[in-house]
């Protein structure tokens, strides 16, 4: 189990992490979700030993590893841009972690090659071992980076924006594949993302971060359905804010005959299997959007409709001030 206690980190005058605590269970797939500048990558690097906290402790299985370097922590780290060694073949990349071991612990050349090819098979890249990183596609490179990190048999796998540099289609396939791989191996894994969809789809638990703090920790379901703060409601999934600090999901809004908030319809289009209606909340300088079932006839442009939330969360009117 991994425990973080009171992790604080500042870059110059800029506070990146403001004293946060977190426990990661064994075998868990955990997402650190937040906008850029929320401190999620810094936190991941601190867990890895690539960055060090100004205060606080990092514990692996009860052992204090706060002052240990990355090499001593037995973690696998997958970089956002993969950081493959471009002058080495794919097989040499994957075998690198084994080949730099001290002579006593280092497997023979043949054993390293065999292990590299085994791992390449695991990430479905068998047969590409003799190529160079430049000859692979983004998705393939990503999987090489993963195989390379797994080669050293880490006790923890850390992934920094693992799908950030890939196009939407590859991203989706890889996401599913990674989820399966995690199920198979049961390796404790933490990944950083700013994409809420990714976090909700992959992670057992999601840690929502903002401005160096943890806003909420919970399952995808909890974070989406029971957001703990206005920020979480806003950042995870789509949210409309109605007067009185009422936060409501677009699909939790219904049209009623007259006892609701009047909305002047501005735009109507198909979104997924629903109608998406965008409009201006009358009397407030505010846009709202909501979904209507596709079998209904959508309102026309310029028409005034009355809406009512079916399900909502109320947060005190804390208009978030930009940092």
């Amino acid at each position, binding site marked *: 189990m991994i425990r973080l206690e009171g992790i604080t980190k500042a870059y110059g005058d800029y506070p990146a992490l403001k004293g946060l605590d977190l426990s990661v269970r064994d075998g868990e797939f955990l997402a650190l979700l937040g906008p850029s500048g929320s401190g999620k990558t810094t936190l991941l690097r601190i867990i*890895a030993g690539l960055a060090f906290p100004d205060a606080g402790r990092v514990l692996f299985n009860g052992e204090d590893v706060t002052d240990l370097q990355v*090499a001593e922590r037995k973690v696998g780290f997958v*970089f956002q841009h993969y*950081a493959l*060694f471009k002058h080495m073949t794919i097989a040499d990349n994957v075998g690198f*972690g084994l080949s730099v071991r001290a002579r006593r612990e280092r497997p023979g050349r043949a054993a390293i090659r065999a292990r590299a090819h085994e791992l390449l098979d695991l990430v479905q890249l068998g047969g590409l071992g003799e190529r160079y*990183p*430049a000859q692979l596609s983004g998705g393939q490179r990503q999987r090489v980076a993963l195989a390379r*990190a797994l080669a*050293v048999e880490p006790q923890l796998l850390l992934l920094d924006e693992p799908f950030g540099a890939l196009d939407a289609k590859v991203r989706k396939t890889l996401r599913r594949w990674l989820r399966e791989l995690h199920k198979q191996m049961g390796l404790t894994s933490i990944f950083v993302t700013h994409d809420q969809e990714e976090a909700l789809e992959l992670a057992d638990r999601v840690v929502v971060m903002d401005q160096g703090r943890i806003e909420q920790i919970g399952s995808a379901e909890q974070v989406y359905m029971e957001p703990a703060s206005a920020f979480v409601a806003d950042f995870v999934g789509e949210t409309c804010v109605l007067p009185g600090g009422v936060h409501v999901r677009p699909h939790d809004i219904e049209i009623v005959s007259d006892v609701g908030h009047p909305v002047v319809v501005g735009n109507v289009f198909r979104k997924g299997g629903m109608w998406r209606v965008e409009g201006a909340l009358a009397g407030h300088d505010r846009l709202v959007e909501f979904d209507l079932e596709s079998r209904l006839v959508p309102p026309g442009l310029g028409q005034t409709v009355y809406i009512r939330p079916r399900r909502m969360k109320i947060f005190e009117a804390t208009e978030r001030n930009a940092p």
Partner: protein
Amino acid sequence: MSARTLDRPRLALVLAALGFLALFLLLPLVVVFVEALRQGLGAYAAALVDPDALSAIRLTLLVAAISVPVNLVFGVLAAWAIAKFDFPGKSLLITFLDLPFSVSPVVAGLIYVLVFGAQGWLGPWLEAYDIQIVFAVPGIVLATVFVTFPFVARELIPLMLEQGRDDEEAALSLGASGLQTFLRVTLPNVRWGLLYGVLLCNARAMGEFGAVSVVSGHLRGMTNTMPLHVEILYNEYNFVAAFAVASLLACLALLTLVLKTALEARFHNSNRKA
């Protein structure tokens, strides 16, 4: 209209540029070889095997053979420290790296005379131990090292900064030591840039005149490098010999250019592939 067609003003501009190039770059180069061969191949060869010329060639090779490896090591270390680590005084170090480019080589030579010369700060001490630096080979090497110091580091720093620290961090996270990371990841990543820097460093080391002239003392057959030997011969109106030795330096320049072009092509390819 195809873009290849040159209209009149463009043609005039191109011709002017080519004419300028021919007049100031090509013509002097041709003159060096023409003058060197004016009295035939025999005189040319004789000028090159003259004992003083041979000594100058040997000294130039010796100076380059010492100063290039020294600057290779220090340049790589300086670039590595600057590009991959944060430490106080980093910007000061970068400024110092550029010092040899901003100071006149003559001043650089003079500094060494003032420090190590007989009348200099360390003069009496050096004399007491019978160590000769100025007007001897050590002084020439020191001056050359100073003048050529920025080449390797300046070539590597932007390259290393652009590559970032991800590769190094990846290597470290896989359990590599700092030295393993440096040798197996950092160095291979910059190998073409490094070779390029070494090439320029070598060209300058062999061709340096100003700084070396001040510290050399111009002792024939002893402390004359090729550029200094050329000057002496020229001042003695021994034009054929002067141009013969100069033609060797010109060949070095041409060779450097060819290698540089080849390296650049290689360098850009390997960068684009990434």
